[in-house]
């Protein structure tokens, strides 16, 4: 039940980002705010004071400002893999908004979900994955099956054999007694 509504995922990375070169996955960021309302005060302060520092340090990110009347302020981030994240920044101070912005900058577009294993690899095996013939004699590669010797039932002394032997001995003892 919970698994369908609380999804889980394996560890993912976007195109092995960071293993060679690191590319900032944030494509564009949109500030939606109101010029009048009190909710947007922090956003307005941020835009006035700290936005240009952010843009200068992140030239690869397109920044859009959308002043929209009477709407709650939002921060919408769009990523290179098409993912989208939005954060409602109502009543946040400009410091808080800066922190959220930095958080969004560091993310890829992959949705946050419970990670099942902390590791993932495309190439788990160097020596070759085990198969039933790994530890067997390599002459089996050139043998033609079926093999008569291997198909034979191994002769073990069964309980029936033992009983028959006992019966035989008793009969011989009987015969010798009569004689």
């Amino acid at each position, binding site marked *: *039940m*919970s698994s*369908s*509504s*609380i999804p889980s995922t394996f560890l993912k990375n976007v195109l092995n980002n960071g293993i060679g070169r690191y590319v900032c996955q944030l494509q564009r960021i949109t500030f939606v705010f109101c010029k009048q309302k009190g909710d947007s005060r922090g956003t307005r302060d941020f835009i006035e004071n700290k936005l240009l520092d952010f843009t200068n340090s992140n030239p690869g990110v397109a920044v859009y400002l959308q002043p929209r009347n009477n709407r709650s302020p939002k921060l919408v981030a769009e990523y290179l893999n098409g993912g989208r994240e939005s954060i409602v920044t109502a009543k946040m101070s400009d410091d808080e908004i800066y922190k959220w912005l930095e958080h969004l900058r560091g993310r890829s577009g992959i949705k946050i979900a419970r990670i099942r294993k902390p590791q993932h690899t495309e190439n*788990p*095996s*160097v*020596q*070759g*994955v*085990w198969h039933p013939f*790994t*530890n067997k004699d390599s002459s089996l590669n050139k043998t033609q099956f079926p093999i008569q010797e291997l198909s034979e039932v191994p002769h073990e002394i069964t309980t029936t054999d033992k009983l028959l032997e006992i019966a035989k001995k008793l009969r011989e003892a009987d015969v010798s007694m009569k004689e």
Partner: protein
Amino acid sequence: MFLTFLNFASRQGGADIQWKRHMYKRIAWSYYGRKRNCFRLSIRTVERALRYSTNSGKPKREFYNNIVKIRLEAACWEHGVLYDEFLKTLDESSIQLNRTTLQHLAIYEPRTFQSLCDFTVKRQGELGLKAATATTPSGVLTRGML
């Protein structure tokens, strides 16, 4: 006027109740009928479902540990080593590999695992020779015969 009682009695200052309802709605998306849409009805089903989902912690661990044990036993047996002896010898030799890692090696790095098994066999052989000269454990009476 005595207002503190009212402060305790009234439910104020919490989060918007719609957040909780939204969460329950998200969890109950696949349910049948009004349980899916009506909060008061979905509380009953969702809370039971969340409670039941906590049941799987211990059995899940046991299940996977059992699988790891079976795999390791089979892998050791292929190289002619007993599972308990294998782990004990590794522990005594300060080879600190846990069962999950050993199982991973057995599957994905079979030659490394083979070398570990060969090591344990050799080490057990060495111990076998030394057992004669080692001190007898406490509680065992040999009367000088061993």
